[in-house]
């Protein structure tokens, strides 16, 4: 089966579908709940305070330095739960596969999904597979839905930032977006850059174990980068935020690629970073805790929350000037201008 390709029959619900599920899905992801292959997974929770999220993954290319769509779909949804102060528990996985997709590639992707499941203890308990005709898809689209249990004492929420709070980013920005775009035809370049895609569960757990009462906002700067993430916080919390450009942790190669293509690193996607807004007196301790973890070793204070210009984000530039940071218009596109 591994040398074969996906055909419309694989999505038909018949023998081919069952074999696909047995040989690929259960082989990689099997667990007592999923193995039942029931119409719905029945799970129970100790607390009624749940977090529920859904996300779809249409990344191009499907395989990129540092990961693939499988790793991305698991980490992305897990991180959405983690940002809500929840312990991620279960994921539902919906695949839309384009006719002709190589089963060997599907096998690799399931392998990546399984690896994240093992690392985090988050189980895939339900799923669905559909196949569309050639030309109707980009190879593979994935939708994941996730459920987690809110930690007790958590008050983190996007509208909870308060003037006087400090804005922290857990590591270098722009890595994912640049790693992915470097592989697109017409824009390609060589580098050692890899996507930062990762589950933030263990990193944020460390933070919550000691500082749960001091964490006001957790938000992952995915599409639209740190710019969109911080603007979301400023708008939802109705506060002003001021960032300091020289404090933004950016890898040399990300700066180089952004210089080449004309990108602003603030607008480039991240898949393994969090923005943490906490009270000022907890900031130093938060940084120390984050830096003990491999995913937080470049954690940095990048700004502060202020009562002025509510809803607006300003950047103190490296030369001492000031400019407004806006939610990016959409795609970050390479410029000559």
């Amino acid at each position: 089966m591994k040398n074969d390709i996906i055909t419309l029959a694989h999505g038909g619900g018949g023998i081919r579908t069952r074999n696909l599920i047995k040989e690929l899905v259960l082989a990689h992801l099997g667990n007592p709940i999923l193995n039942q292959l029931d119409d719905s997974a029945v799970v129970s929770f100790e607390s009624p305070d749940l977090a529920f999220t859904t996300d779809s993954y249409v990344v191009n290319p499907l395989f990129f330095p540092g990961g693939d769509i499988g790793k991305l779909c698991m980490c992305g949804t897990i991180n959405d739960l983690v940002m809500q102060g929840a312990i991620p528990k279960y994921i539902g996985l919906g695949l839309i596969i384009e006719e002709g997709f190589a089963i060997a590639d599907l096998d690799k992707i399931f392998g990546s999904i399984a690896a994240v499941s093992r690392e985090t203890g988050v189980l895939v308990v339900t799923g669905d597979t559909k196949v569309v005709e050639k030309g109707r898809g980009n190879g593979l689209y994935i939708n994941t839905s996730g459920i987690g249990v809110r930690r007790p004492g958590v008050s983190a929420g996007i509208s909870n930032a308060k003037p006087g709070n400090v804005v922290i980013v857990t590591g270098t920005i722009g890595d994912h977006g640049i790693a992915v775009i470097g592989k697109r035809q017409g824009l390609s370049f060589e580098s050692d850059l890899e996507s930062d895609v990762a589950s933030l569960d263990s990193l944020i757990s460390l933070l919550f174990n000691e500082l749960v009462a001091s964490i006001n906002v957790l938000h992952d700067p995915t599409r639209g980068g740190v710019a969109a993430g911080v603007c979301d916080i400023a708008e939802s919390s109705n506060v002003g935020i001021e960032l300091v450009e020289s404090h933004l942790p950016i890898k040399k190669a990300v700066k180089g690629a952004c210089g080449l293509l004309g990108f602003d690193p603030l607008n480039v996607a991240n898949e393994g970073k969090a923005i943490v807004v906490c009270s000022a007196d907890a900031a130093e301790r938060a940084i120390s805790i984050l830096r003990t973890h491999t995913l937080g070793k470049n954690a940095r204070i990048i700004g502060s929350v202020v009562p002025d210009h509510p809803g607006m984000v300003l950047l103190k530039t490296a030369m001492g000037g000031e400019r407004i940071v806006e939610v990016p218009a959409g795609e970050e596109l390479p410029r000559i201008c």
Partner: protein
Amino acid sequence: MKCAVLNLARQDMVRMNKRIEQVYALFAEAKQPLKFMEVCGTHTMAAFRSGLRSLLPERLSLISGPGCPVCVTANDSINKAIAIAGCPDTIVATFGDMIKVPGSTTSLERVRAQGGHVHVVYSPLDALDLARKNPDKRVVFLGVGFETTVPGVAWTIKNSAETGVANFSVLCMHKTMPAAMAALVSAGPIDINGFLCPGHVSVVIGSNAYAFLAEKHKVPCVVAGFEPMDMVGAIEMLLRQIVEGRSSVEIEYSRSVTPEGNLAAQRIIQEVFEPCDAMWRGVGRIPGSGLKIRREYAAFDAELIFSDIAIESDDENPACICGKILRGVKTPYDCALFARQCTPSEPVGACMVSSEGTCAAYYAYAKKRGA
């Protein structure tokens, strides 16, 4: 425990470096409000990104001229590119800057969304590569840009001819800088006390190209680099000329620019292209400010290859006053369309098309002031 970073965001507590202090000292000596114009989209971007204007003396204005080659691309050129994208077995390859520029009714972005084959590239070389990899498709590269970009496009056309890539062509919308600057200073009353001349265009054409501005029109000119400190240094040099009552062409960006420019690049431009008149969005027709592909390379001229396709008619909004804004005689607040029909997400004129153009910048800062 309070973190020191919390105290850093106030401009009045900024420790200005000595170059900026010099700007203030020279401006005080000049004893008059001044307007300097930068004519390069990349300078507009650099000024915006660094927050340069927030550091300059209040009555020293840095205004943006028609320096973004993409933003000044007229409706009929965009309409042509859009029509080509709709042709069967045709791929349009373009710099990312062009994707959102509006034509009469739509844009390349919307055309792509509706299934048109539009591919963003970093270099015309990538477009040629696309043509080699897709021999059954016609690949049309949108030739936009000033003299910095033209030599590269010229090389690509020559290489296409030499290696026999018959399915590659260029839709030439290139424009040249000195003719545009000449038009700016002779179009009517201007209020410009100095030009920051484009840094990388000057790498190719040389700083001597601006001599007429300083000698005939008595406007001080400094060719500036793009790092924030380059721009501050260039402003300092302009102020010095004004205080000393001089008008000449000077080079701040001496690590890249010479008086004669890059002769090999100039030669290849002349080999493949020849001057023509061009329409500039928001400014109008400027004689001799455009380029077209020479007859020897007609096989790669998309204008000729696609000469018979239906193109939407060009109808620029008569209420658009970009031309006056670009000359520094009006501000966006004087425009009836500003922030009403003309906004960053639905731009009408050149000054709003670029996200760092004069009108787009005013739009963003007006929000801050609550205007």
